[in-house]
């Protein structure tokens, strides 16, 4: 957000994410608030934020491959599973430190994404979506049938340690998860402003034109898949070590639908949109979680099931409303607000 009257004079100014002193002050304030939160926030809120941050990492990956590169993917939960299992296997069976296992799990998920996504990249749109669903099922089948993954019983990764200090509570893991989320956001924000990011957008907007301009479509599409899966793998690793279990039932196709819904609500092709979408959906879901028992108690005639279905209905309704009235998502509203702020106090 830039107030009225501030203009860029150099290219570096134009490229800067933080342009004014107020921006820096806001950032520092937000970071202080973020890192001090466990000191005054309740256990429930801290654990909620842990889940929120992990979801942001996964959806950032999806935003890159779908929002920026235009390749619809329903494979995020599967790639998250690959990251979670990779991290658990590396730490439990190979004795690798968590701190090495974390990036490795992202890389393994990325490579798995390339292998799984390679044939899919010759197809587009709905066909690609179906192919990524197939990848989900193949991955889950492998997890269920391999001995190394613990098959149906899953694995129990241990909490990470820093110099012998275990991060074995939600409050302790919070600092790690928040930090990783910030790093991944910084990476994603810069990636989409780079040559690679512009190539992704070109492919999304018109792949034929992009190819004619000399872009190697196959290379960039694979790269988008790799980066997306890397994000999912990192999130999977963090989640596994947070709840100390990786189990086949944790990674369902329903999650993939939620993730896609989040980027639609937040705004396709926007990093802030990822935050808006994830926060909006997760908070809505959490409110429903809170309201359902209350509703079935306050209005017994409603019954438990209809009250429970409220969450899904609310999600569906919100999605329809956004698709009809604001297909560019909350990020677009944010852009409109920023534009009007830039003109304030003038009308135009």
């Amino acid at each position, binding site marked *: 957000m830039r107030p009225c009257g501030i203009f860029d004079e150099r290219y570096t100014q134009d490229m800067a994410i933080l342009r004014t002193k107020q921006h820096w002050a806001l950032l520092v304030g937000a970071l202080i608030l973020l890192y001090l939160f466990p000191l005054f926030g309740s256990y429930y809120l801290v654990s909620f934020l842990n889940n929120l941050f992990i979801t942001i990492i996964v959806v950032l990956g999806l935003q890159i491959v779908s929002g920026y590169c235009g390749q619809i993917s329903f494979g995020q939960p599967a790639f998250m599973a690959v990251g979670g299992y990779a991290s658990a296997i590396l730490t439990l069976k190979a004795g690798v430190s968590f701190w090495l296992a974390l990036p490795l799990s992202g890389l393994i998920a990325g490579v798995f994404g390339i292998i799984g996504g390679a044939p899919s990249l010759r197809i587009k749109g709905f066909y690609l979506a179906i192919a990524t669903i197939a990848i989900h099922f193949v991955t889950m089948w492998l997890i269920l049938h391999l001995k190394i993954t613990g098959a149906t019983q*899953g694995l129990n990764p241990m909490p990470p340690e820093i110099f012998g200090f275990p991060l074995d509570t939600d409050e302790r893991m919070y600092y790690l998860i928040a930090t990783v989320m910030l790093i991944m956001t910084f990476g994603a924000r810069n990636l989409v402003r780079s040559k690679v990011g512009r190539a992704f957008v070109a492919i999304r907007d018109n792949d034929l034109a992009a190819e004619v301009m000399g872009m190697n479509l196959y290379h960039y599409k694979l790269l988008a898949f790799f980066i997306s899966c890397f994000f999912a793998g990192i999130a999977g690793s963090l989640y596994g070590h947070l709840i100390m279990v990786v189990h086949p039932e944790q990674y369902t196709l329903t999650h993939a639908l939620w993730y896609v819904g989040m980027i639609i609500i937040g705004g396709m092709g926007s990093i802030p949109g990822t935050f808006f979408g994830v926060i909006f959906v997760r908070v809505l879901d*959490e409110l429903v979680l809170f309201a359902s*028992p209350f509703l079935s108690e306050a209005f017994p005639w409603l019954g438990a099931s209809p009250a429970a279905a409220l969450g899904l209905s609310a999600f569906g309704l919100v999605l329809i409303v956004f698709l009809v009235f604001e297909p560019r998502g909350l990020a677009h509203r944010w852009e409109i607000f920023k534009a009007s702020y830039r003109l304030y106090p003038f009308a135009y």
Partner: protein
Amino acid sequence: MKRKGWVLLFGVMMLALASGPASVYAAEKTAAFLDLTDMTGAIAGLAGQASRITKATFDYFNERGGIDGVKIKYIGVDTRYDVARALSAYKRYRRTPRLLLANTIGTGLGKAIYPLILRDKIINYTPGDGEFQARLGRTFIYSTPYQDGFSAALDWMKEDWQKKGNSGAPIVGFTSWDNPYGREPFRGGKEYAAKIGVKLLDPELFPVGSLKHDVWLNRLAAKGANYIYVCGVDPTPTNVIRDAYALGLTKKIQFVTDYWGPDRAVGVKAHAEALEGSVVVSCFSRGTDTLNHPIMTKIWKKYMKTPVNEMRGSASIGFSWAMHFIEGLRIALKDVGYEKLNGEAMYQAFMKLKGHNVTQGATGICDYSPSSRRMSRYVKFYRIQGAELVPITDWRLAPDAVSLHKF
């Protein structure tokens, strides 16, 4: 309406919401039961009604003054069979005063929540994964372990085989969902089959959500199966037997399903002809037994507001959850009193339930004890006859197949 009007309306609604339920239990002595159930997900058909009956049973006892003056606060949360959502809900409600038990539907969730259960020193219910019996802890299996039930079915098959004038033991096929639940009966069941000389074919596992099962059924038939044990939550087992009927297999192969098999108000209602003669092994009462249960029918009539003949098998599951909690609470209150009532007291109380006839016939005699996390060791066999589940045995002791497997 102007913007201020909307804001005012929203404010009034929020106030109304915030002022409601807290007062209901504020002045009363309460103990809480957290039901992390699935009302809109993969097993909603089974879990949804079970949860409703649990709540109705608590309402029934609460209206009569509660358990020694303590009323039960039921907190039902729809987890959508989603581990992350269930964990979040647990963290939301774990500080509820005198939360004694969390009911977790799903093996994956049971495992994910266990560290939190240990930390909070409460107890939890989980389905029939034998591992919770093999590694004793604060998780109480709310059924007979799947491998024990399967082994009881193997005994019945052998008995039935010999009763029909055959010698030796039959060849048994196994088909199920390809997931942790679907594979669990084999962990100990396989060893038991070897022990009693039953030839058990390699399992034919199919993906959850499969609509046609001909391939797997034909494979088992080609290998000479005399009996086929089917797992999956209804309507899956019904669909498997429906396909077998269409292939003509039900004439030569006896089908037996596990606890979550054809339900009188679901599968049996839809495919009575195809299911005729199939057998269900269950650790919960089914069919006519459920319809004739005096307390369950009374609760159903009063709270469910639908005809009793629409009562499903899952009714006895929900009733069993509630009754075991009530019986445990009664013992805990007797042991420590209301002021000291906590999860630890409930844990100790649950281990004293062995030998109690907790559900008045909706399940077998309870087996919870310091050395057992099995709800019961008893199962009953039902045959589908004339679109109804009719008991063909009394409660029978199921073999201990859990101890045969190395976990």
